[in-house]
């Protein structure tokens, strides 16, 4: 997309005189800015949705506008806006004994790790910043940067609870990356390409005449792989029932205990961005991405956006559903689930998909 913009710039007369380096920066910024806005708006919407969904699941009302003044807007719509403003103007506290440089750097590393993943995510047929040859692998690679940010935050806070939280988090993320990647490989074996758009296009059409040809329905092994992928994804982003890194009621909130104000907000932005990434990846790889459930029906670029966001939004809703209905796992149960159940199952899955593809196609 940068190349496309540069080409467009060269056609505009008053821009063509400028140095190409400046144009390059301009093009990159023009793409990065909407993505950043998207990440911020995504967090705003997700926080509101989370509060409302949790409230309805617990038979409460959640944030509501009260009385004549409508304090938080109708249905509490302005609640997250108020929260965001509060976070912006809150005092920025850095503990006296904290490692200042790393303490300041950590939230940015974490956020950048989440943000650059968006470069590889196709929103519809055309809106995709770069369709890498290594698309899926790029996303897996970039999401491993965030771990360093978490460890930095835990270490630099100079607080043993933060450090323990960071260790728990890193151990969890690294462990669940393995079943996640293995269940991803099952699909890549069937597609024969790492490109995101190739994976989505491979899911075109119908299977058995009724079901959409999404990889979740493709064969029994990819059906299992879908669940392993999504649950591992939930564990990757540290959400309940896998939210040991920040179990605020039992374990003193983990790596971001000492953070406040805007720096804390960056952790939050990264968390909701990661949630969206997991939902988007799952819907792209197993649920056909921007493809309509009925081939040829409502399949334009605009509808592509609609289908993509409906699928991703539904999966985000499922994650919130998990959060308010499942109890938290213990650390040993968490590791047991990953290493004793998910890992063998995904290895068998991999073999199964290979045999299925060999014999049936």
């Amino acid at each position, binding site marked *: 997309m940068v190349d496309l913009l540069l080409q467009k710039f060269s056609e505009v007369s008053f821009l063509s005189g400028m140095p*190409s*380096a400046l144009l390059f920066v301009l093009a990159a910024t023009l793409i990065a800015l909407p993505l950043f806005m998207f990440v911020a708006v995504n967090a705003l919407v997700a926080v509101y949705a989370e509060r409302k969904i949790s409230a309805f699941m617990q038979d409460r009302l959640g944030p509501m506008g009260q009385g004549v003044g409508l304090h938080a807007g109708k249905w509490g719509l302005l609640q997250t806006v108020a929260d965001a403003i509060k976070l912006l103007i809150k005092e920025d506290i850095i503990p006296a004994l904290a490692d200042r440089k790393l303490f300041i750097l950590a939230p940015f590393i974490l956020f950048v790790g989440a943000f650059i993943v968006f470069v590889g995510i196709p929103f519809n047929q055309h809106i995709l910043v770069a369709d890498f040859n290594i698309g899926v*692998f790029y996303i897996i690679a970039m999401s*491993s940067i965030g771990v360093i940010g978490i460890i930095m935050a835990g270490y630099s806070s100079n607080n043993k609870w933060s450090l323990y939280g960071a260790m728990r988090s890193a151990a969890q993320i690294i462990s669940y990356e393995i079943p996640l990647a293995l269940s991803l490989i099952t699909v890549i074996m069937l597609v024969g390409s790492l490109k995101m758009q190739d994976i989505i296009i491979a899911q075109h059409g119908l299977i058995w005449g009724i079901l959409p040809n999404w990889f979740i329905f493709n064969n029994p092994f990819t059906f299992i792989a879908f669940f392993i992928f999504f649950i591992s994804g939930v564990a990757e982003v540290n959400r309940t029932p896998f939210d040991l890194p920040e179990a605020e009621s039992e374990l003193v909130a983990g790596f971001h205990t000492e953070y406040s104000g805007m720096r804390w907000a960056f952790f939050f932005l990264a968390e909701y961005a990661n949630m969206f990434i997991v939902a988007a990846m799952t819907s792209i790889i197993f649920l056909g991405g921007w493809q309509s459930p009925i081939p040829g029906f409502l399949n334009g670029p605009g509808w592509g956006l609609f289908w993509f966001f409906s699928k991703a939004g539904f999966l985000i809703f499922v994650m919130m559903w998990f959060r308010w209905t499942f109890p938290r796992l213990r650390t040993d149960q968490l590791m047991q689930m990953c290493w004793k159940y998910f890992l063998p199952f995904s290895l068998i899955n991999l073999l199964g998909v290979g045999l299925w593809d060999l014999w049936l196609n």
Partner: protein
Amino acid sequence: MGADIIFWMVVALTVGSAFLVVLSQNLIYSAIALLFSFMGVAGLYIFMMADFIAATQIVIYVGGILVLIIFGIMLTQRIRDVRISHTSMQRGIGGVVVTLIFLGLFRMITGSPWHFEAIPEVEGTVSGIGKLLMVEYLLPFEVTSVLLLAALMGAAMLSRRGD
């Protein structure tokens, strides 16, 4: 050219943070500087059209080895109390050796006849690597995987000895 500027930025990032790794007196700073150095190396791979290797570099080195290094540092006892965990000694002799090695390398780099060639547009390196690994270098590939498995089992054995 935009690409040129980015190339020199990547080079500066790689070399600058590599210097920081060596010169920093705080072990954890060195580890974090290593992160940026690894990222820079991944960037250099991209300039060589080796996109798969670049992503592998990040997965293996940033996601695996660097996390392992930081875990090692954080789990080592009393490293938090001693802020200066590694100091430089014998700077004079070290400086002389380093300068000599640098001059030798510099002479070699500037003296050797480099073979320049326009990089062909490669349509993805993944399938090429896959075919080479699965056809031509199948035996080394399988032997390496057995070796890694043995290392994994050995590590598990060693860590369970206490039980």
